[in-house]
């Protein structure tokens, strides 16, 4: 039944692409909201636009998941006007490190051992650590190590805040539950086919 397998597979991929496009648009929207919010402290960013990537950990295949992360960086860089500067490289490094660490952790540990809270804190830490490493080698040299306490502190605070929000949202959202169910059903039928 190879034709059926390919039909189910292509349908599954079309749905994934639509979902990836929707999550990318959501990341764009949340980036705009974050850009408009006043910052109580310089460098303090809640990372609202990381929420779609966090939920996509369980919803999208790896290629679309990484594409979503790259589109999010492009959107943020366009909004902040830093697309053609090396600031965009920091954004890309941080986002990719965060996305890959969250995906790796989810691949190793299921939802019974690790919730969105832990994933979010791990993602925020990886993002800020990757940016520190880039700052060390590309911009500030050895002085970059003095930035570590602030960067780690902000990552822990923003990761906890966003992780708690994500966990509460996931427990209440019918939209997310429906998406997860659809994905599981499609995955099951794909396996059977």
């Amino acid at each position, binding site marked *: 039944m190879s034709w059926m397998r390919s039909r189910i597979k292509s349908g599954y991929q079309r749905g994934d692409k639509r979902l990836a496009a929707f999550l990318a648009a959501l990341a764009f929207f949340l980036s705009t909201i974050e850009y408009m919010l006043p910052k109580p402290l310089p460098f303090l960013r809640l990372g609202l636009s990381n929420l779609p990537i966090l939920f996509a950990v369980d919803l999208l295949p790896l290629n679309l998941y990484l594409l979503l992360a790259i589109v999010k960086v492009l959107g943020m860089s366009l909004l902040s006007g830093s697309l053609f500067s090396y600031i965009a490289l920091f954004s890309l490094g941080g986002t990719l490190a965060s996305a890959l660490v969250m995906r790796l952790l989810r691949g190793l540990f299921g939802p019974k051992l690790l919730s969105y*809270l832990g994933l979010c*804190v791990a993602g925020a830490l990886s993002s800020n650590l990757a940016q520190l490493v880039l700052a060390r080698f590309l911009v500030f040299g050895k002085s970059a190590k003095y930035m570590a306490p602030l960067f780690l502190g902000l990552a822990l605070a923003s990761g906890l805040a966003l992780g708690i929000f994500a*966990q*509460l949202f996931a427990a209440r959202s019918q939209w997310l539950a429906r998406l997860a169910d659809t994905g599981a059903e499609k995955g099951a039928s794909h396996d059977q086919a």
Partner: protein
Amino acid sequence: MPLKNPVRGLQVKPLDFAIVILAAFGLFWTLFSSFGRTGSPVLIISSGTNEWLYPLSENRTISISGNIGETVIKIEGEKASIISSPCDNKTCIASPPVKNPGDWSACLPNAVMIRIDSKAAKNELDAFSY
């Protein structure tokens, strides 16, 4: 009518705890290694591979050339702050002044960083400064 539980669904899993504890440990370790020094504070300005040291006790204004232009730093009242920068977002100017060892402020677009270190650390720095 009973109030809804605001934290319904907030179930913390074992690895969540492990990650948060690991992060807190890393944070405290970097805090102690950065702020443990004592002695008279000095201002260190870095731009690319160059570094300059200034005593915080003398008021002055310093102009440093960076990637996209001049960053102006003012030392006044044993505190230093960035007062002018060619960057777009001016986050460095909004940062609070630096005065204690371990304090720092930076302009990423112009690649200029200012930080406070102690006199003991200054001697250490002279050994490998550019």
